[in-house]
């Protein structure tokens, strides 16, 4: 029994270290968000006093609230479109054979690897010409484009998991390709679609580079930009508390989401990677 306890002990320590690694920065920001102005600079990890004032404050800032609205709207729309478009392409890549398939896959992956900074300039210029700067579509389009490789990759891994024989069986049972897709493949790929949606949403929600480059006013600025531009209640007030509170507001939904569906996400990422 000694060996059993010792092993468990080591793993417990390891787990705690890992937990600490992941959570400390998060808890730090949470702690900062609860610190009143007076003690924000005291360097303590656990606040001496707790206050909700930071939170109350940020929700009174119009630009923050509109940024929240922008973030949610843009991320949702981009996610929805990206998943739909990605599902179609992923199905074609995973199940059908056609010339240029390797080229398509290669190019999509190449795009995933490119520094967005390279494209931001010309993108800004194009959007400026078309009049898309500082609009929702102006961000949605790039988000779709740059999340598509991730979406296609994950989705096609899921599609490949579905036994080919099920489609054959559906064909023999009398189904047209569309019926086979709709009644058999789609329900089975649902978990994959779900996982992909989460991953894409995180990508859009998280983005800073495009948001900061392609938006100018709070008509379309997202929360990531808004936080970076926080200046506090007045010119002389330290914005730390507000920024921290805003950060928490941004983060908690995502973390809850992720924790709730962690098993799916891990499976999704590892399945795709295994197949690759």
């Amino acid at each position, binding site marked *: 029994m000694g060996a059993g306890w010792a092993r468990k002990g080591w793993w417990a320590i390891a*787990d705690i270290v890992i*937990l600490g690694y992941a959570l400390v920065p998060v808890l730090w920001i949470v702690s900062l968000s609860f610190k009143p102005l007076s003690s924000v600079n005291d360097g303590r990890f656990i606040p001496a006093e707790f206050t909700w004032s930071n939170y109350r404050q940020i929700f009174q800032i119009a630009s923050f609230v509109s940024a929240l609205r922008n973030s949610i709207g843009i991320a949702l729309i981009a996610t929805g479109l990206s998943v739909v478009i990605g599902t179609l392409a992923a199905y074609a890549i995973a199940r059908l054979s056609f010339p240029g398939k390797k080229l398509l896959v290669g*190019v999509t992956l190449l795009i995933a690897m490119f520094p967005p900074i390279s494209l931001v*300039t010309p993108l800004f210029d194009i959007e400026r010409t078309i009049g898309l700067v500082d609009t929702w579509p102006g961000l949605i389009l790039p988000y779709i484009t740059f999340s*598509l490789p991730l979406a*296609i990759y994950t989705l096609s891994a899921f599609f490949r998991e579905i036994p080919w024989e099920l489609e054959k069986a559906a064909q023999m049972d009398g189904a047209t390709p569309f019926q086979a897709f709709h009644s058999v493949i789609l329900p089975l790929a649902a978990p994959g679609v779900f996982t992909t949606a989460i991953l894409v949403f*995180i990508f859009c929600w998280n983005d800073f580079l495009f948001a900061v480059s392609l938006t100018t006013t709070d008509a379309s600025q997202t929360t990531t930009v808004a936080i970076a531009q926080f200046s506090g209640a007045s010119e002389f007030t330290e914005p730390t508390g507000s920024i921290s509170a805003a950060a928490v507001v941004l983060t908690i939904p995502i*973390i809850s989401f992720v924790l709730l569906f962690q*098993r799916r996400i891990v499976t999704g990422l590892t399945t795709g990677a295994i197949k690759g």
Partner: protein
Amino acid sequence: MTTTAQSDAHSAAPGEGRCRGPASVRARSERRLAALLCAPAVLVILAVTGYPIGYAIYLSLERFDLRFPEQHGFIGLANYGAVLSSGYWWQAFAITVIITVVSVAIEFVIALALALAMHRTIIGRGLVRAVVLIPYSIVTVVASYSWQYAWTPGKGYLAALLPEGVAPLTSQVTAIAVIVLAEVWKTTPFMALLLLAGLALVPEDLLKAAAMDGAGPWQRLTRVILPIMKPAILVALLFRTLDAFRVFDVIYIMTRGSNGTESVSMLGYDNLFIGFNFGIGSAISVLIFFIVMIIAVAFVTIFGVAAPGVQAQERR
């Protein structure tokens, strides 16, 4: 070549293995369907990246500085010359390379440990796996702020651990160290997941056999696990290297690039959006583009990393 292509669940689709001769009705309709399905994705990607890439290259060949609009005109490779002979560029390049190499190296070690832990932990496996995802899902900006505050003297708990008055973010070497730490914290989980996938492929039986043959844990790791994981390791390294080279968010938030912490992406941003010099900024962007491509090609050809989707096709 086996002809009983249908005997297992993951066998080839009917489209595979078709002779290149006269395309049958089925093959043609399959191709049409595939074209239809891929069209939206291809259109979006081309529209958003195709033209911009071309335009960026075009811009990089022009003198296009919004501060001197009258001097707009084609100047060939002069911008590139200016960039490549500029100290700023090479400093940014050096910094980017350092950050990339150091952070990927550290990440690899930590991610490997994490992956091993996630794979084998006896207690709290679900919790550990869930928690490990948190750095991945936190908005980079938020994480960067968290670290920045932590290291600011007076405000931060980490700064409190350092001798009085030392401000890591204000001097170059320490600032870069802090930036590397922040990058590592954020992206290690993703790499850990990629490595976990590779780890899961190592057959238990092989490890047991090695143990029977007298291999200790370290030997099992270095001689059995790591070699089998090689493809996954290479993919993880490739993705992370490309990502690390593009580092932007962390630097922007933590130091705005001051104190000699500008990466190439920051440099590009500064020239474009602060300096409004589109010509130079585009040249920098295109250069980054090429470097990234070279890295990817190097990985693929030298290390034999296969683009995941393509390799999987071969298997069918």
